């Protein structure tokens, strides 16, 4: 029974270069002397370090805890001592440093205690939290935290689970050899995913250029107690993209701006399934992965690598050659140029592709777009790359978004076929990050506006409140004075006066109250003056007074003398 397959639009057939690296067995790379483990290896919040410099850690020990829901923990890839928690250059196109935990390994590779999880007996939410703390993230390239993807949402069910073994990008073979050698573990991982997602159907999509992997996976599937269909899909780049794999297998398209779970489908890379099985059934957090080292090296092959191993170590193991011009992380279509060859392997590193002038000649200078629309013919996202290019180049990002720039998966098909050699994807990446930056700026501006407006409102409110308080105080003082006045007047007047208190209070009350306030203030001032006058000059005895007068007279005489010029001075010039 052959399954009906569908063909997504576009795609290209670049030479696959898989044979170079997929024949050799998986080689476990030795643990390097120093591991550099970044805390930001996944999409979402970076993990928060929980170790300090000088701490001794064991293999698999938590060194940075997940921060929030969309995050994943980071673990020590081998035992040793933490020697630094500092920014180091990351395997990222920017070449910028970011926080890393540096461990000097002791070579003993002593594990923490590993406890397998009984996933069938655990509540799904607890299991997901555990997976997040085990550092599970998608190994297909996007490194999205797997725990989040394993949540079927409010529906609690995701009918179709797809394991993606497409691996369509040229040169890369890590999924291929993983399927050949660890098919059973992948299937066990699929069983856990199926349990969490409540899926009724499980498909494995593998491109037909990997017959050994297909055979191994079919064999493993036959041993399972539930049905898994292993489907050979045609080899077309980018057939291993999640959305393309869904379309090939089901004929359904994920609508723009939606997730595959919205149409009841979840896709995982086979490597993620393998890591999940290791985490749940063996209690091993995500501390290693398979990495293809290929391109301009002597022995292209796949390594089982501890996260944090410098790329150069692996290149040396595979046989460094003269004439290397650079290192790509990933394949030639979507790979990122590494700032140097000493950056560490991270969870996203599926391939280290060493470039040379012969294998990857520098592209010729870009020529103007001739609007041949070959890019539109090959675009698997069914976009209009030539239009997106025009808008991104002109900085017209609004129009670019109208043309669904964010549906672009950056697969590089358009760049591959462009007869003018325009680096189209570079323009889309530029456009996307520019749009994000502008949105961030806009949010910041809105926040500032809101806070400024609230401050103005607050100041205004405080002013009004202060005025009201002063008015109330003044009114109270007036009332008090009026009362005092009334009390003073009341005993002095006769009965008739008290019989008409309204007239007294009403007509002259205001003026009287004011007078009373003034009088009281004057009395207070006088009292104060009396108090503050120096007490030693009052009530002098006659003798003291006489002494003072004498002194004053003497002073007056001296002043008089001082005013008159001396006779000697006037006579002798």
């Amino acid at each position: 029974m052959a399954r009906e397959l569908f063909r997504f639009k576009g795609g290209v057939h670049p030479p696959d270069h898989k044979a170079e690296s997929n024949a050799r067995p998986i080689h476990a790379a030795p643990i390097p002397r120093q591991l550099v483990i970044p805390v930001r290896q996944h999409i979402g919040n970076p993990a928060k370090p929980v170790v300090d410099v000088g701490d001794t850690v064991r293999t698999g020990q938590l060194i940075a805890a997940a921060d929030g829901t969309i995050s994943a923990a980071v673990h020590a890839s081998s035992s040793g001592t933490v020697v630094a928690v500092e920014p180091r250059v990351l395997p990222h196109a920017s070449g910028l440093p970011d926080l890393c935990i540096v461990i000097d390994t002791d070579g003993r590779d002593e594990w923490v205690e590993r406890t397998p999880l009984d996933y069938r007996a655990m509540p799904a939410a607890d299991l997901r939290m555990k997976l997040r703390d085990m550092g599970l993230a998608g190994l297909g390239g996007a490194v999205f935290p797997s725990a989040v993807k394993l949540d079927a949402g409010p529906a609690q069910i995701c009918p179709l689970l797809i394991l993606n073994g497409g691996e369509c990008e040229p040169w890369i073979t890590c999924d291929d050899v993983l399927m050949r050698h660890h098919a059973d573990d992948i299937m066990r991982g699929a069983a856990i995913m199926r349990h969490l997602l409540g899926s009724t159907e499980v498909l494995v999509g593998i491109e037909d250029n990997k017959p050994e992997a297909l055979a191994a996976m079919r064999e493993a599937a036959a041993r399972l107690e539930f049905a898994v269909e292993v489907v050979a899909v045609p080899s077309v780049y980018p057939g291993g993209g999640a959305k393309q794999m869904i379309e090939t297998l089901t004929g359904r398209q994920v609508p723009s701006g939606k997730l595959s779970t919205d149409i009841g489908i979840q896709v995982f890379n086979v490597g993620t399934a393998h890591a999940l099985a290791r985490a749940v059934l063996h209690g091993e957090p995500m501390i290693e992965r398979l990495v293809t080292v290929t391109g301009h090296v002597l022995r292209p092959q796949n390594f089982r690598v501890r996260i944090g191993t410098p790329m150069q170590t692996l290149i040396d193991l595979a046989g460094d050659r003269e004439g290397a011009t650079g290192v790509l992380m990933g394949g030639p279509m979507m790979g990122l140029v590494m700032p140097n060859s000493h950056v560490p392997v991270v969870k996203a590193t599926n391939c280290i592709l060493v470039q040379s002038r012969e294998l990857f000649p520098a592209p010729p200078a870009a020529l103007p777009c001739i609007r041949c629309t070959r890019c539109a013919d090959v675009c698997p996202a069914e976009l209009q790359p030539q239009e997106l290019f025009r808008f991104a180049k002109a900085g017209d990002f609004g129009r670019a978004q109208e043309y669904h720039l964010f549906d672009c998966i950056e697969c590089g098909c358009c760049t591959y076929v462009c007869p003018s050699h325009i680096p189209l994807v570079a323009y889309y990446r530029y456009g996307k990050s520019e749009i994000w930056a502008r949105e961030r700026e806009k949010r910041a501006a809105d926040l500032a506006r809101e806070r400024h407006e609230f401050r103005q409102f607050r100041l205004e409110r405080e002013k009004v409140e202060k005025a009201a308080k002063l008015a109330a105080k003044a009114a109270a003082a007036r009332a008090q004075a009026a009362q005092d006045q009334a009390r003073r007047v009341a005993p002095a007047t006769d009965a008739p006066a008290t019989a008409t208190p309204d007239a007294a209070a009403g007509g002259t009350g205001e003026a009287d109250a004011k007078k009373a306030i003034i009088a009281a203030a004057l009395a207070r001032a006088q009292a104060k003056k009396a108090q503050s006058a120096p007490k030693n000059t009052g009530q002098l005895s006659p003798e003291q007074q006489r002494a003072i007068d004498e002194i004053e007279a003497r002073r007056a005489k001296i002043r008089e003398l001082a005013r008159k010029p001396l006779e000697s001075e006037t006579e002798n010039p």
Partner: protein
Amino acid sequence: MLTAIGVMVLLAGVIGVALGWSAVRLKVEGNPLAEKIDAILPQTQCGQCGFPGCKPYAEAIARGEADINQCPPGGEDGVKQLAELLGVEPKPLDGEHGVPKPKSVAFIDEQTCIGCTLCIQACPVDAIVGAAKQMHTIIASECTGCELCLPPCPVDCIAMIEIREDLPHWKWRYPQIQLKRVA
């Protein structure tokens, strides 16, 4: 003849009532142009334009009392956007109102701060936390980098720190031909 006049008068009456009603009921609060201008301004609230905040400046532009090139934090890009909105020619920034500076945030040296609260009163977005004789600190995520807190500080303990590019804020550059690096 009379009928025609009657019809016209009736029509005028009906339309007049409708217009009068809509003028009252559908009145637009505030100046919509000022709002649009305000949306373009960077909301630094720094007052470098000579107005006490972005909104007053926006209103002044809308009234035609201020030029569009008085906002250094908005930069040439902001001037261009304003020119586009208002349908005028963009012009270079007026140097009298300052020059654009890289985006930065204020930082209080906690060793030197005497807790006088003067900077708190100066901050246009309430981004400084502190109380009298207590050490003050700046909420970096809400600081607009307006520098209004610098002059009132009696002990000069506030410094502006440039925001360096980090990984989450890194942007892909505009693609260009890599020139051959010499030496």
